[in-house]
């Protein structure tokens, strides 16, 4: 029996644009709450239909971005390395993330106070290697510390375009040997490092990157993204994936999309340690 994907989500009860901490956000461009709820519920349903078990983090008033559970922590086996948010507006999320993860069987760890780290938003496994974005939110030094703690190879990648402030907005591991990415979000060193360690890289074009093509949720061979990424979906189909498009425009207003709204609790599809885990547990 194959391992069932476990995904953490958080209902958008208190979601909205209450501050501006990335170029997407504009408090004068508010979200439509009813539409946001519909879009979130559609994503929830789609992931459920494709075999994922969705767990829910209780929403908290005054923490509009808690809905973006990808930033709660980096999950490595039964360990959750919790986020230390750069922006004070999101720091209130830390205790709620940690409490839920701890109550749900994870060993919760945190980094020193002066180490910014934004969880699975900036740290994604592809194969045996953890790719880690820095400069905009997480710090390179935090990733070095994470590398030391988990004893895995960690490749820090500098993010150079403020629109792609988290690694998961411009990079998406699809399998242990394949990832999609938007080259414009990285510098030459980053692009070279990616090309060196990931055998197959799918380039996402500028327009579709802006539609958050790279912010995809991968469950098995299903890849769910925001709408507006037809060319990327064609590429995915050619590679044998089943792409699904669902509108997430209300979350794009905050600089997030499908992947940001989820935290894979059993390890991302592309993480090698996850397959080892599932083999061991069978």
């Amino acid at each position, binding site marked *: 029996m194959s391992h069932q994907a476990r995904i953490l989500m958080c209902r958008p009860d208190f979601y909205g644009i209450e501050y501006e901490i990335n170029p997407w956000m504009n408090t004068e461009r508010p979200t439509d709450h009813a539409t946001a709820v519909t879009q979130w519920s559609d994503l929830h349903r789609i992931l459920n239909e494709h075999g994922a078990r969705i767990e829910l983090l209780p929403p908290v008033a005054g923490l509009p971005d808690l809905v973006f559970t990808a930033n709660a922590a980096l999950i490595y086996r039964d360990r959750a390395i919790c986020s230390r948010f750069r922006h004070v507006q999101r720091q209130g999320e830390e205790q709620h993330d940690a409490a839920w993860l701890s109550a749900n069987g994870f060993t919760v760890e945190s980094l020193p106070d002066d180490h910014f780290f934004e969880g699975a938003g900036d740290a994604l496994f592809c194969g045996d290697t953890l790719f880690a974005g820095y*400069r905009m939110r997480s*710090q390179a030094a935090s990733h070095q510390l994470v590398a030391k703690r988990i004893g895995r190879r960690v490749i820090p990648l500098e993010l150079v375009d403020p629109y792609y402030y988290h690694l998961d907005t411009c990079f998406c591991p699809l399998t242990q040997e394949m990832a999609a990415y938007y080259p414009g979000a990285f510098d030459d*060193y980053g692009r070279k490092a990616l090309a060196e360690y990931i055998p197959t890289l799918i380039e996402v074009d500028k327009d579709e990157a802006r539609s958050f093509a790279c912010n995809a949720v991968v469950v098995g061979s299903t890849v769910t993204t925001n709408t507006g990424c037809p060319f990327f979906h064609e590429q995915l189909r050619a590679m044998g994936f089943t792409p699904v498009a669902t509108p997430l425009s209300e979350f794009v207003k905050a600089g997030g999309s499908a992947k940001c709204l989820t935290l894979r609790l059993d390890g991302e599809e592309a993480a090698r340690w996850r397959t080892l885990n599932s083999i061991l547990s069978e």
Partner: protein
Amino acid sequence: MTNNTSHEFQETVELQGHIIDSLILPKVLDAIMIGGGSFQIEDIAVGQTRHDASSARVVVAAPTARQLDEILATISDHGASPIASHDCRLVSADLSGAFPEGFYSTTNQRTEVRLNESWIEVQAQEMDCGIVVDATKNEARCVAMTDVKIGQQLVVGHAGVRVRPEERSLTSHGFEFMNSAVSTEKPKGVATRQIAEQMQEARSSGQKILIVGGPAIVHTGSVDHMTWLIRNGYVQKLFAGNALATHDIEQAMYGTSLGVHLQSGDIIEAGHEHHLRSINRIRRLGGIQQAVETEQLKSGIMYECVKNDVDFLLAGSIRDDGPLPEVITDALEAQRQMRERVRDVSFCLMIATTLHSIAVGNLLPAWVRVVCVDINPSTVIKLSDRGSWQTVGLVTDVEPFLRALVEDLKGRSS
């Protein structure tokens, strides 16, 4: 691996992690060279398996301290941290009035030191000082060389010290005209308007404005402008020398400044004695305060300062006549008092004085806005060259500037 580290300013940094696989090491080395520095790899340990981290210890060198700071700031973003960036290193002062050798020399930028594994902000930030640490109170503050006391704990070296430069925003501080620091070619009207805006904002938010002024304020006939500023709450502190106060009082008592009649421009017979007679009269009365109380002094800048509770400080110099009783003739004592009294200042306007401007500029932290108005561009340039880069310079005659400033402020309040 080396590319020449003969530069004078050096710092050793350490990089850890998968710095070779991720190209972080070449990226850091490139950034050092792009920043005008050089490097020497002292030690490198390459991980044996792909899970093993590598580490490198790199000596970074640069021709100036500022370049080195910039390079260190850039590469720290990539995870390169000064090697002993654990806690700051403290050495007990073995003498009073002198730092231990190798002391950390401060800038006017916001600075933090690491103590017991956490960073604390250095208080009383000032350039060209040392940092004294009180570990029991978890406090650090700048201390001038002369104020060091035997046994105090002082920071030595750069380890455990980090500087957080102010952002030099081009648009948000309201000083859009400051894109070049000093110029005779700037539209004065725009600059004056922006200075007026800043002063009004400071007044309405209860911040303190310091004016550092020279006697040219009196010589050029600007006393009325200054007194208007004082009466209307745009001046909370005034730093000057003996000359400004003397000529202001001379004008109040005799209508002259250095013997020149300010209304007619005529040189008055025996007018050169007026300033001495003024000083003498104030000395006989015991001071400016007493002269105002006994109604011997009934107008002028110093009169308004007393009447409006402006905190004034007069610092002496070797060539002073008199001086007036309030003048602090011990230069170190004057420095000490100025240091204490600039702590709560948020805006500083320096008018037509070179030495006092530089002295105050040296004492102010980088986040205090400073405007320096002088007919002589070299005053402003000197201030910037000495590290007070936050200074905005305006090269113009004092009287037209103050007149325009007062008119602008009057327009706002009406």
